[in-house]
């Protein structure tokens, strides 16, 4: 138990070396000049707020290419995930580029995939989704772009004291719940795929059956009309048909 706590303490110290800056700034608040304070807060806000994840779903029009950019600091790990949930053959071309414009990850005609990478240089990373190959089907694409670690709770992780068992387990639960939420999202998207296909099928069955019924009636009437035509149109030469 004691060992565990010690380990926790040391790992905690390592982890929080960056995030402890806010306490430092607030403690030395009075001693600092306003400009220093500004810079300090600027750094902390950048540190805290850039570690954000964004998830969204967008509609990729036919023949279009949509790009999203995100500035990533050096040595920050980033996680990129996408999934096509509707439209055409559920495929899309994906390209991930680093700030120099080099392709670091690309896939053609993919339905879903994920990619984890660590930024080698600070700069704007670009993710592009292309639907250029598709002339008339638009796609619904889900994107999850996580940069850096999840922002710590205010107050939590900022202190250097030993984590109690309660705190460690609550953190573990938090991680587990995050995983649950992620997998729920995944399932939701898969379900959306299936549901959209089923709704499509339903619609098609409906339209096709109505069309077919219409076609049968139309052809039936047409047959009669044509047959009648054979016998009525050529009245003067009706004698030809005498042999029939």
């Amino acid at each position, binding site marked *: 138990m004691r060992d565990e706590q010690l380990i926790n303490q040391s790992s905690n110290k390592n982890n929080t070396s960056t995030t402890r800056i806010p306490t430092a700034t607030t403690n030395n608040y009075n001693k600092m000049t*306003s400009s220093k*304070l*500004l810079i300090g*807060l*600027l750094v902390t*806000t*950048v540190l805290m*707020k*850039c570690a*954000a*994840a*964004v*998830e*969204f*779903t*967008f*509609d990729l029009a036919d023949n279009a290419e*949509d*790009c*999203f*950019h*995100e*500035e990533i600091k050096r040595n920050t790990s980033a996680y990129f995930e996408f999934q096509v949930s509707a439209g055409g053959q559920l495929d899309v071309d994906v390209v991930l580029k680093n700030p120099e414009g080099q392709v670091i990850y690309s896939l053609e005609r993919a339905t879903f995939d994920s990619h984890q990478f660590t930024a080698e240089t600070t700069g704007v990373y670009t993710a592009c989704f292309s639907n250029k190959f598709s002339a008339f089907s638009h796609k619904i694409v889900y994107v999850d772009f996580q940069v850096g670690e999840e922002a710590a*709770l*205010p*107050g*939590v992780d900022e202190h250097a004291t030993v984590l*109690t068992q*309660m*705190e460690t387990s*609550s*953190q573990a639960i*938090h991680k587990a*719940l995050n995983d649950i*939420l992620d997998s*729920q999202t995944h*399932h*939701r998207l898969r*379900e*959306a795929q299936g*549901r959209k296909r*089923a*709704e499509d*099928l*339903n619609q098609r*069955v*409906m339209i096709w*059956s109505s069309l*077919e*019924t219409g076609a*049968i*009636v139309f052809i*039936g009437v047409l*047959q*009669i009309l044509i*047959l*009648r035509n054979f*016998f*009525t149109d050529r009245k003067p030469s009706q004698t030809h048909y005498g042999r*029939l």
Partner: protein
Amino acid sequence: MRNQYICLALLLCAIQSACGLYFHISETERKCFIEEVPDETTVIVNYKVELYDPRSNGFMPSSPGIGMHVEVRDSDDKVILSRVYSSQGRISFTSHTPGEHVICMYSNSTAWFNGAQLRVHLDIQVGEHAIDYANVAQKEKLTELQLRIRQLLDQVEQITKEQNYQRYREERFRHTSESTNSRVLWWSLAQTIVLVCMGFWQMRHLKSFFEAKKLV
């Protein structure tokens, strides 16, 4: 000191929304995002728009002239929010019906700026991600552990909502499948009847026609 605080707060806001994902759209373009959320879920959208500046070949950090029209539609295609915001804004809404919510953004510019590019910084947070725990801690005077438990509770609540929504969707899915099934069944029956009727009518009609023409 108070002024400094205000300054800092403003700066904080500026940094907060300037960070994160961005994309480019032309001024007349419309960009939509879809958020599939359970009911009673809060969605927060932070955005900031920058106008392309041809002189410096970059983007102006603040463009006061530009406004963004934000429109939110729920799963029944009902408009639940439609407003013009300034170049930087924070929109929050709570869903009342589960399903796909479409958030559309387009600038209010007319032909005046036509063709210029806009850079839109966007951040969408859903459910418990949308909760600002720093604020909660301050307001309710919670300790770290209490705050963590609070977060766990929020997460569990979100999971419960999501599961309810999942059940609702499963029900919809099942209805669709059952409807397809019964449609296929009934239409095949109906089509057989139509075919038989058609054939019967054709024969009768032809027979009477031939009899009238004295061909038979």
